[in-house]
């Protein structure tokens, strides 16, 4: 395989790793029934047509009951459910799992890290766990760490998990009928969910070779495109907005970054655009994702997206895309995934080949 050839530019910054790991199975968990735009519009007092036209997301799932505000699932619950599904589908026994890596921007607690609650629910013990605090790129970062651990860390198999519960910030008591679009967007864009994959050093289960992973901070000196705040005892009454986004910057930068990620992955792997059978583009919203996919210009690749149905549930997205990909990809086919984290401008992506 191409990716096994030694890379020429030994001095270049770490790009896709030179060795291959494998995804044996993927599992996902979405809380409850899908919430459609009509329901969301009714509950929040926003215009349904506006969501349809300007956001393009049709449904999403919430861990919090929209009627009662009751929290029905924790992030740990969702992640454990997804991981259990992946583990069962992989054919690996739980004791074969050597580590758990999890990416999330919305942990249940600052401590203990949610990944440890997930391990507990799965009955895993005496293994290293990692939680990576990150937005949309967290899942890819988790994949990269998992990849590193099985290719060079002496481990044979691990769980890689991503998930977010964004509905923590879904303030149901607020009247949004007069809110500005930039404020409204936060209420209609997001959703909750989790995903997981079993990563292995040898091909097992679905035998999806992870040929390369890209994860790079590119935000030196740049203002964040997105900020999610947290509050403690001392500042909980501050009148700060919990979520702030610079949508102009996001709309401008993300498509450009996505194209750069695409080409960096292709060149590192020595793949041509024609060799890419499936494209997993960034999942910002139904509308943005459509736009970015067009700009990426891979006419032969089949787009695999989910955000229009699942909402932007952060670190769950790449796994939801992977799950859809597994239904379609055949032996010998290739896929590229691209994710951009606009908080502090992180480029990420990965390349897959079914063997």
């Amino acid at each position, binding site marked *: 395989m191409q990716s096994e050839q030694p890379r020429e530019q030994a001095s270049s910054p770490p790009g896709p790793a030179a060795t291959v790991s494998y995804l044996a199975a993927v599992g996902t968990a979405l809380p409850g029934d899908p919430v459609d735009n009509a329901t969301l519009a009714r509950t929040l007092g926003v215009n349904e047509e506006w969501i349809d036209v300007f956001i393009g997301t049709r449904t999403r799932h919430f861990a919090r009951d929209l009627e009662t505000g009751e929290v029905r699932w924790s992030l740990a619950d969702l992640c454990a459910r997804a991981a*259990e599904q992946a583990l*069962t589908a992989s054919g690996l*026994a739980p004791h*074969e799992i050597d580590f758990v890596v999890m990416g999330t921007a919305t942990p249940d607690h600052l401590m203990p890290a949610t990944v440890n609650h997930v391990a507990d629910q799965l009955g895993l*013990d*005496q293994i290293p766990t990692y939680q990576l605090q990150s937005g949309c790129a967290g899942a890819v970062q988790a994949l990269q760490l998992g990849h590193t651990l099985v290719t060079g860390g002496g481990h*044979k198999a691990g769980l890689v998990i991503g998930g977010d519960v964004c509905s923590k910030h879904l303030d149901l008591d607020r009247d949004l009928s007069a809110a500005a679009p930039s404020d409204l967007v936060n209420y209609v864009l997001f959703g909750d969910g989790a995903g997981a994959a079993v990563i292995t050093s040898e091909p097992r*289960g679905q035998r999806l070779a992870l040929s390369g992973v890209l994860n790079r901070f590119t935000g030196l000196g740049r203002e964040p495109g997105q900020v999610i705040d947290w509050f403690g005892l001392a500042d909980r009454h501050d009148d700060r907005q919990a979520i702030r986004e610079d949508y102009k910057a996001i709309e401008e930068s993300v498509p450009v970054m996505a194209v750069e990620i695409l080409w960096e992955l292709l060149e590192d792997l020595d793949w041509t655009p024609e060799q890419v059978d499936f494209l997993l583009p960034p999942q910002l919203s139904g509308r943005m994702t459509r736009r970015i996919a067009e700009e990426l210009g891979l006419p032969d690749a089949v787009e695999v997206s989910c955000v229009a149905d699942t909402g932007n549930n952060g670190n769950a997205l790449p796994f939801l895309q992977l799950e859809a990909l597994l239904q379609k*990809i055949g032996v010998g086919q290739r896929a590229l995934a691209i994710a951009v984290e606009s908080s502090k401008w992180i480029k990420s992506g990965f390349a897959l080949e079914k063997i």
Partner: protein
Amino acid sequence: MRPVAIVGIDCRFPGAPDPAAYWDMLMRSGDGVEKVPRQRWDARDFHSRTGAEGHSNTTEGGFISDPDAFDNDFFTVSPREAAAMDPQQRLLLQCAWRAVEDAGVAPHRLAGTDTGVFVGVMGNEWAHLHMTDYAKVTPQLGSGNGYCMTANRISYHLDLKGPSLAVDTACSSSLVAVHLACNALLAGECDTAIAAGVNVALTPALGIFYTQAGLSAPDGRCKPFSADADGIGRGEGVGAVVLRRLEDAIADGQPVYAVIRGTAVNQDGRSNGITAPNRWSQQDVLAAAYRRAGVEPSDVTFTEGHGTGTVLGDMIEIKALGHLHAGRSGRPLALGSVKGNIGHAEGAAGIAGLIKVALSLHHKTVPASRFAAKENPALKLAKQGIRLLKAPLRLRSGSTIGGLSSFGMGGTNAHAVLESAPPYAARPEATEPEPGRAGQSTGSTGLGTGVFTLTAPSTAALRRNLLVQADAMERRRVPAGPLCWSSNRTKTGHRYRFALPARDTGELATALRETAADDDLLARLVGNPTGKPQVALLFTGQGSQYPAMTARLYLQSPLYRRFLNEADEALAPHVGGSVRELLLSGDEAVHRTGWTQPALFAVEYALASSLTELGVPPALLLGHSVGEYAAAVLAEVFPLEQAARLIAARGALMEQLPEGGGMLAVRAAHTDLAELVDAEPLVGVGAVNGPKATVLSGDLAALGRIDDVLVRQGVRTRRLEVSHAFHSPLMEPMLDRFAALADETGGGIPKLPVYSTVRGRLLEAEPMDAKYWTEHISAPVLFGDAMARLLEAGPTHLVEVGPRPVLTGMARALRSAAGAGVHSVAPVPGEEADGRAFAEALAELFRSGLEPRWDAVYPQEERQPQRLATYAFSDAHRFWARTPVRSAPAADIGVAPERADAVPAQPWDQAAANGRGAVLSAVPSAVEDPVARAVIEAVAEVGGYANDEVSRLSLLYEDLGFDSVMIMELKDRLQDRLTGLEAMSVQDLLPRLSSVGDLADYLQDRVGSAVA
């Protein structure tokens, strides 16, 4: 040696009532040692700090909790017999049962097999206490004691026919038992073996012996290989493992904890005194075990040492190990011993070590060895290639080899070499579905929802175990499908059957709790069947269809999908489209008869085929009008393809008929309508659904005239929404063309009993051929008659095979005459019906006694064994010596069953806590009759029951555990009590001994009215 798999484990050790708690204690480096419980003996009486003669230097030891609790009802052992049994026997019995369940096997399934039982035991203290008062030696005491009975009782109660023996080699007994069990498996003597060990300390004797021999630790704790090591602390325990040849375990898809690669046993021979350990023999037995396992010493990552914590014992053990491991390559051998946690469990020490090693390999972590942090420098461990397990050792991915030593006081040494389970041992070959075509290949199974099942011998036991299962599910997340499938395999065989469809483990746990707490719910979800259900399948006719019928089921259930696809393929060439697409798209065209008929046929064929695949044997069949087509395929009248061709033509030809026909349901007997019908040549009787339920069919205008008359007479009528006048003279124009095709498709004699709605009765060797199907078109549907005949045949369940329940409702009206108590089951209860509804129908049949083919409920990837919480026995009944051992002569020690329902359960023992307060299943009944009262009293006395635990309904053998010895005694007591009784031999009595009531009735005759 060929590898042997450890597939099931159960145990109880000091501070740890079950394997999970044992592992938790090991990982916490917990301490199971405590003061001698007052129930055993009064430690102060025998304590002397200096170890004076007749005294022990410690008041502590490792004791298990609840050694007196025994669920005698579960094993149908009478209280009197239970009270006479060595608690070691009682503990082993429950432990063995749970270990078998843990192996994923319903213990009933082992009955009659050559399964072997090998028990290591060295303590006989119960006999010392109870067999020395010769005047009080009873037959029960005889069978309740003796080493052999520890193993033989397991074989007896589980009905195991393989070798069954107790092994006593002192402290190495249970590892030697494991060695013998492996050999028996490999020699082909048995295919499954239960190897166990047990030790319960009832007297201070051994502690005094250890003290007098200078071997007893003053703090009652073994401190293996530690600088503080100062002797032995006594420990207790009971443990059992289920062993299989590895290849058998893999072939059967059993999960494997670990693999035994090699075992060896030898003897010290004439060493430095009979109790002194012998270094040369120890290193020989290690080498022999390595040889048998085919490993080099350096392959062994860790070893569970004997590690009694005596200065000499530790030294010799290290030297023997060092002989093989000094200078080994790689990391030194990691060494520890569980004796630091639980003390020296003597006869159970080997099994304690084996279970620890197996769990270590299973969890890929070797626990730290308690007291190892301060290692004994005199042992010079580093030089011997050994390090102590001062912290848990996480094992690397892949295979690891661990060793286990157990040495007997008399010089019989044993060593075992174990290895991690092979990676795929947990599951058989997984097949990979093609992307996008998952579940479409032939042989697809799965309803989309599993069914969780649990059985127990009483409702109280069921309730207790529901809670235990709920606890386990909430502790650890496991996928619902494999969990349910495993429950179907292991939790069967008892009288009371619980079943509940489940898609999510969390929801299931909640539902189990609710059921346990709610009597009404429990009654609804639990069956207590006396026989197998007799199932009648009722195939629904036109009018029951609706757009998207069974579409949800189709999407969720690969099994249903498979059969609907089959029907769709068979119909496709004849209907000019796809019935499947029609259903999935929710097309309203399903109401056009050209589509209605093939669509109903496809749905019913798929439902009936699914039921058959799920192991629901159709005893009787009935189809209402077009419903007869799918019924006929099931009865092998003609193959699917011919039926599809015929039903497609039937629908198409009818659709081509001019509209203008209709049907009128009339609440009147068809004979009362004859005059009105005869007056209208274009109207006929379409269906006779019951004595006062008639459907007229024909020309709309003519029907209108009849309707007017009936309404004036005050008769209730209802227009049916149909496109044509089915089963009426208006069908005439299509008959010739249909008959021509029917000639081609043919049709034979049904191979299952079909109650024909053309004939209104069971078809007796009559073909359902072209003539039949042609007649079927215009003949009235004689549902009422056919259904009445079917009910007379005595089905227990009417299962509606159609997109909504219609016929079961109509049958209800006919039931009063025949077949009251028949249950209706609807796999498709309505438009929202999905896999869960279908699963509920199957659950209902299981509760009623059906043994479904559970594999068909789950897709292949869900058929993975999951270990479930094992059976939680009742701890309501306690059996113990009346008084604890005192230093005074123990003349007053007696045996008495102790009803300690009020004894508080240990806080960690949820099962026990939940079980408390459970109602005993005895049926109290006021017994006025003096003979019956005398019989009940005599039975209670002989069995050791309370009077209110015995009723007329109690079965002597099955419920009360009577045996031949007890029958002899019962006869004597009856003769004492009933003075008017004629002379009677046991021979006379034997045939009358089913229930207490039967016995009482028999005696009543022989006594007349003369009662003492």
